[in-house]
């Protein structure tokens, strides 16, 4: 689906947290995961800005590891604060989707 950018904006950070939460990983792999999921418009640059923010806000643990080709890669894993943030994200998501579903079904 095209033109999801605006609608995805607020939720992409949660998606990245979820991906990191399931295993320690790096930017390119996260981007590929999102692309495979069907978010084709997400580029590495977008993920990079999110990772930078997560790092700055102290939600991830970062480890530099040498890569087979090119410069060392930064690997990301969730720390306790990150796991808390992820739980909050899903709680908010739950809340929003349940309200919107209700709206769609014509309920109150």
């Amino acid at each position, binding site marked *: 689906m095209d033109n999801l950018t605006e609608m995805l904006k607020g939720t992409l950070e949660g998606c990245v947290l979820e991906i990191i939460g399931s295993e320690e990983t790096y*930017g*390119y792999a996260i981007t590929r995961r999102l692309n495979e999921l069907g978010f084709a*418009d997400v*580029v*590495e*640059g*977008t993920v*990079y*800005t*999110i990772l*930078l*923010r997560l790092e*700055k*806000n102290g939600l991830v643990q970062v480890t530099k590891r040498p*890569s087979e*080709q*090119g*410069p060392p*890669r930064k690997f990301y894993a969730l720390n306790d604060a990150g796991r808390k943030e992820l739980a909050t994200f899903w709680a908010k998501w739950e809340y929003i989707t349940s309200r919107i579903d209700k709206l769609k079904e014509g309920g109150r």
Partner: protein
Amino acid sequence: MGIHDIIEGKKQWRAHMARFKALPSDYQIVYKEIQRYFFKVGPVGLADGSLLSGIVDFFEEGVAAGKGVLELIGNDVAAFCDDLIKDSRTYSDVYQESISGKPGTAEQ
């Protein structure tokens, strides 16, 4: 106390420029335009050099992966820049706060 001074103080500015010059021309063009934009907007992250050197780190990874620069960060370079500094204040914010005596009143 400027950007150059600080990075130079850490003897990193020259290394930074050498890395910049080693990038392919499409990356160099985009890097320069980004730097120019940040000089005008003035995010506080400019001063310690982390913002710009982080971009070069990220670009080097893109080059190693054999990608073109816009493939890496998307066509909307300005959006990429604004995402990068989303949570960070700018010197003009700091300045506006200094004259108003309270935070958060600066027009962006």
